[in-house]
């Protein structure tokens, strides 16, 4: 009885525990019986499978989707190629294997070892690719030694090919082997080491669509690695085609224009935002480095001081120069700083805040209004206008038109650029904004940088008399896509808050710049009513230039801009050109744009 006072009565739960133990005991007995069945009764069947047959899982890579231009021209396709992998578990002796393979494939043994070491953590039965893009000679040499070297696995794979080499390379992008860090990320969860993935451009942006689904083949191989039969096969599903908005003919001219120069050309449809041509020079041949290994061409390109891999249309940042006068004109009109009839006198030089400021035209333009100031790209007019304006107002309208903000173009890596504000200078430079700073901004200089694509978009907004536009390379409807791209159609009806009449004033000025003997006269195409604005931006400050000149160091010329559209009424096409160190916009960029306007007229205007 005493017992019960010290110890509580646990008999009920003990009984329950005992029942559970009995269940466990029965499960153990069941397991023993099951193992008896597998290991003793069915032994022969499994023994045969293990002895004679081995089942190997082979991944069949899908065909990557094609990339086509507007008129269906194929810009990226696939061709057959061979790759060879090592299956480490099949090596008799790993070191011997390495030796033999190095000789067979003409590889450095250390390179080979490094390659395999990179994928050390993979299970031993998983093939590691050791060489791709094999020559026919190499294929036959491997094939001939298949019995001696069961550790080698020869497989065909579709290889990406860009039939026109460097053509539109900055739009298409390129493929390279997935990096170990990329493999860790959620986006590439389904990918395997050794896979090739898009690294820039359309290849990267539309990776999911282009990729397709890999197939899997389970095959029975004997101990020599010879295929004895197929257990099952899931066929790969090829990736989907991506149609670009690019027009091959215009693209070709855009690239011819840039040949031998550095810069960018954008041709786009201002109504829809579809990009018709996109060139950035220097460019590169993406065929050269679709490779799992690091060929010398790749190192050359990557380390080239001219940055051929840099997509200048969205990553090149340049001061807009006189092109910005269009924005200044609109901002000044809308903010009621000036009217269409306000005039200023240009004598070639003016003192502002105790500093002489020069017009590019030394004799001076005389008295002029906004229209003729744009036509002649008069600096003094815009200095005077800028003096009356707040920097934040200028930035506000600039951003509204698309400068200094990302355009949302559907290829990765876009830079934002910068339109300076008081706030920006306070945080970035730890200085207040000086009135003199505004004067530089008024003619597109100062700490202001934009991308050529932004300039093209802002030109489209002006051409549309204020209707906003999102640029794109892949048209949603044709590609059966959904989402934000869907809005990028002529039906989008968002307008910037600037009076349409103000646009007419600025457009009149840019029409005269081309057609009435203004600075952009070289862009004139008879019968096509081109409107445009040139720009020549100083790449270094005046003081620095003088200092260099004193030391007899060649001063590099200015960047050369042209941006414009045609025709004046119901515009069809926008052309933006930037040539790095190309000299004056009127001398270099404007005549180049003429070729594009002419061609566009030939193709599209009846």
């Amino acid at each position, binding site marked *: 009885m005493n017992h019960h006072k*010290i*110890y*509580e009565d*646990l008999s*009920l*739960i*003990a009984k*329950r*525990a*005992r029942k*559970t*133990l009995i269940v*466990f*005991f029965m*499960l*153990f007995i069941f*397991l*023993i019986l*099951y*193992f*008896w069945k*597998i*290991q*003793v009764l*069915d*032994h022969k*069947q*499994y*023994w045969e*499978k*293990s*002895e004679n047959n*081995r*089942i190997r*899982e082979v991944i069949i890579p899908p065909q990557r989707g094609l990339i086509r231009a507007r008129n269906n021209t194929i810009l990226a396709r696939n061709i057959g190629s061979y790759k060879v992998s090592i299956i480490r*578990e099949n090596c008799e002796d790993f070191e011997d294997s390495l030796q033999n393979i190095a000789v067979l494939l003409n590889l450095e043994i250390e390179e080979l070892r490094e390659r395999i070491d990179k994928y*050390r953590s993979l*299970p*031993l*039965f998983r093939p590691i690719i050791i060489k791709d893009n094999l020559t026919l000679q190499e294929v036959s040499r491997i094939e001939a030694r298949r019995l001696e070297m069961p550790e080698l696995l020869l497989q065909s794979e579709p290889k990406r090919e860009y039939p026109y080499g460097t053509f539109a390379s900055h739009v298409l992008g390129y493929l390279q082997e997935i990096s170990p860090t990329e493999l*860790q990320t959620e986006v590439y*969860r389904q990918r395997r080491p050794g896979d090739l993935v898009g690294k820039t451009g359309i290849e990267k942006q539309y990776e999911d669509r282009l990729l397709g689904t890999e197939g*899997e083949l*389970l095959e029975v191989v004997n*101990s020599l690695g010879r295929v004895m039969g197929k*257990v*099952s096969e*899931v066929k790969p599903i090829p990736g989907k085609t991506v149609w670009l908005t690019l027009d091959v003919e215009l693209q070709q001219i855009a690239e011819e224009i840039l040949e031998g120069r550095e810069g960018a050309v954008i041709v786009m449809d201002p109504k829809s935002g579809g990009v018709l041509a996109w060139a950035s020079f220097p460019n590169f041949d993406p065929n050269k480095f679709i490779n799992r290994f690091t060929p010398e061409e790749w190192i050359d390109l990557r380390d080239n001081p001219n940055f051929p891999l840099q997509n200048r249309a969205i990553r090149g940042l340049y001061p807009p120069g006189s092109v910005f006068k269009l924005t200044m004109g609109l901002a000044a009109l809308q903010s009621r700083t000036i009217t269409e009839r306000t005039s200023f006198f240009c004598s070639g030089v003016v003192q502002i805040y105790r500093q002489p400021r020069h017009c590019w035209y030394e004799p001076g333009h005389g008295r002029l209004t906004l229209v003729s100031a744009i036509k002649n790209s008069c600096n003094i007019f815009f200095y005077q206008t800028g003096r009356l304006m707040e920097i934040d107002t200028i930035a506000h309208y600039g951003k509204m038109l698309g400068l200094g903000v990302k355009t949302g173009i559907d290829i990765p890596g876009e830079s934002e650029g910068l339109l300076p504000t008081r706030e920006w200078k306070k945080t970035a430079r730890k200085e207040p904004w000086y009135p003199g700073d505004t004067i530089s901004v008024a003619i597109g200089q100062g700490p202001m940088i934009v991308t050529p694509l932004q300039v093209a978009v802002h030109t489209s907004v002006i051409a549309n008399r204020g209707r906003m536009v999102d640029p794109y390379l892949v048209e949603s409807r044709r590609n059966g896509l959904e989402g934000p791209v869907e809005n990028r159609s002529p039906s989008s009806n968002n307008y910037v808050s600037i009076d349409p009449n103000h646009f007419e004033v600025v457009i009149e000025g840019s029409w005269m710049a081309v057609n009435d003997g203004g600075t952009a006269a070289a862009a004139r195409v008879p019968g096509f009513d081109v409107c445009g604005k040139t720009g020549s931006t100083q790449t270094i400050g005046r003081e620095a230039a003088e200092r260099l000149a004193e030391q007899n160091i060649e001063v590099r010329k200015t960047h050369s801009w042209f941006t414009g559209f045609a025709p004046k009424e119901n515009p069809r096409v926008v052309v933006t050109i930037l040539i790095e160190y190309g000299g004056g916009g009127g001398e270099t960029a404007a005549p180049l744009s003429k070729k594009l306007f002419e061609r566009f007229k030939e193709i599209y205007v009846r």
Partner: protein
Amino acid sequence: MLDRTQIGNIDWVLIGLLILNSAIGVAVIYSSSQHLPGDYHLKQMFWIIVSLIALFVFLSIDYNSLVTYSFPFYLICLVILVGILFFGVFISGAKSWIRLPFFQIQPSEICKITVILLLAQVFSGFKKAYLTWGKAVFSGAVIGLPIVLVGLQPDLGTALSYVPIFLGVLILAGLNKKIVIVFLILAVLLGIAGWSFLFKDYQKDRLTTLVFPSKDPLGAGYQIMQSKIAVGSGGFLGKGYMKGSQSQLRFLPARHTDFIFSVIGEEFGFVGVVLVLLCYFLLILRLFQSVFKARDRTGVYIVFAVVMMLACQFLINVMMTIGLFPIAGIPLPFLSYGGSSLLTNYLAVSLVVNVRMRRFVNV
């Protein structure tokens, strides 16, 4: 702290069985990883020693004191599990690891100990004949939080290994039909939710493969097939230690961790399988005896929860290697390679020894 009677009451038989099972593990790890770089058997031995020391250190604290402080421990574990979702390291597809200077640990394993202690506290004064709603819901929450957090990592296997602990507690407290039905419905709902939102494709693959093996002969089915071939080809006597078997097993990923029992089946045959099952059963039987020796309700709950955790993990893992359970990523306790799970299981056994050695009330 400790007195001589208590030390005299340490269950040396149990500890002996524990070491025996661990030693079998080291031998098989050595065989199955001989072609892999990394000296897994040495690392495993190191962890066994560390875990043994931890086991004895842990014994010095009365389990009732551990239970008293179980709630704060539990909270700390939850905080770590939340933190790991943000700062953890990805290893084989799940964010379940904390990287320390020399090794990594998996907090989701260690957390099971605090769950066992907390549940024992919840039921220590529970004397009703059948489970009540209050207790059922509360203990469901105690176990549900870590399951969800671990499931989010997403480490389905480890999350699943919490369930037997809960099941054990419910069995002891007395299941009544209503509660069983409600929990089953909840589990199904959770399963559907998990299927739609939480599970990754590879986890779905594994489940569908079990139910419809012909649907996916690739992927998950491939592992089960290779494992069965390995076990079946072992025959009655096996192919011999470290002999000839490798060609099959090299097809099998995780053969020194989750699929270690396939290696045993292939190399030691049916005889080996029965012997290892026997060793294991003896271990579980010995653990079970402590259920009947415990002096109080808390002790019974602790011991039973530990037994459920270990026995179910063992059974699930073994069934997994012969295709009777989906490949859930649950290691074989004491035999599979892996420091965190080894340490956790040793600490769990330590709790059982603790209960048994303090079975006499000092009046």
